[in-house]
């Protein structure tokens, strides 16, 4: 019989009852779940305001049982700045994809980080614009085929991928900036720990925190969900190395 005592894992309370609109196997759902688990573990559900982006995760606000606002494309870090500056004792996070954060919203993210805004950014890098149907993103790998780089991204005419964590970590306002992946259980656990540390950073007022998560897009990549995880392992990680790009000394002291 199932009793609370033999329960090992259940759907986090920080989630609403609504099933996500994500495609089967899309790791957006994993990232959502990790954020929900962390908010629940840190007892932050009732003091958190989320900022949803434009892109596949535009409906993120439907899934978290916290207050939420919905930003214009790319502007989530500016909107989060507005919320956090007037409610410094609340927890404010943005959840943004690579089109939102690294393309149209590059100005907002860089300056929020440079100002050391005490917010947490969950950045999903799946190397394409998912919601509009798989166009080239700033993070699309060289040679990678998308609907707007049909013969593969040609770096001569379409430029090179932007390594967001590497770039953001150069800014002095940043307390915590790491890249993790969602392609296997071990990395998912490491990703969760990073998300936890990022929110701990904010709660302790230690500056801007961002976790970049390598994620899949099975539908637009034209792969099964399982093959998509392999693609992350074999192609995404070599281009976007996992690691701790910046952890301030104060944050290194945090014990989780």
């Amino acid at each position, binding site marked *: 019989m*199932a009793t609370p*005592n*033999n*329960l*090992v*894992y*259940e*759907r*986090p309370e920080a*989630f609403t*009852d609504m*099933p*996500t609109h*994500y*495609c*089967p*196997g*899309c*790791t*957006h*759902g*994993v990232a959502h*779940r990790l954020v*929900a*688990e962390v908010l629940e573990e840190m007892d932050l559900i009732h003091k958190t305001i989320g900022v949803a982006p434009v892109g596949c995760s535009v409906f993120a606000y439907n899934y978290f049982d916290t207050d939420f606002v919905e930003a214009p494309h790319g502007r989530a870090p500016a909107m989060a700045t507005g919320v956090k500056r007037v409610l410094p004792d609340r927890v404010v996070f943005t959840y943004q994809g690579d089109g939102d954060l690294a393309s149209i919203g590059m100005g907002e993210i860089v300056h929020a980080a440079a100002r050391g805004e005490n917010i947490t950014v969950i950045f999903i890098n799946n190397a394409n614009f998912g919601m509009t149907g798989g166009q080239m993103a700033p993070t699309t790998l060289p040679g990678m085929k998308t609907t707007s780089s049909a013969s593969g991204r040609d770096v001569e005419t379409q430029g090179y991928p932007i390594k967001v964590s590497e770039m953001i970590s150069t800014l002095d306002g940043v307390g915590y900036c790491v890249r993790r992946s969602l392609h*296997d*259980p071990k990395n*998912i*656990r490491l990703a*969760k720990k990073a998300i936890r540390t990022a929110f701990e950073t904010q709660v302790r007022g230690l500056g801007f925190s961002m976790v970049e998560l390598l994620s899949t897009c*099975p539908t637009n990549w034209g792969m*099964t*969900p*399982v093959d998509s*995880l392999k693609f992350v392992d074999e192609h995404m990680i070599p281009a976007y190395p996992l690691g701790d790009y910046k952890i301030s000394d104060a944050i290194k002291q945090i014990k989780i």
Partner: protein
Amino acid sequence: MAAKGWIEVSDTYCKGCELCISACPQEVMELDMSHLTPKGYHPAHTFKDGCTGCAICAVVCPDAAITVYREITKRPATVAV
């Protein structure tokens, strides 16, 4: 003796993506081809004994569709996922 566990997969959330199936260390999961969810997916289920309640299926599940239980042997197990 290996721990004995079991899972419940929610028809509301499961989309039959198979990530849990490929991640299951005991290889006891498959899609239930005799059953469709209201959304029209074949949901994942355990098709034979051997589940240890390790919760790796729940760790990789993008839809938080899996609840995991483990038989209590000595003390209540609370495994952080």
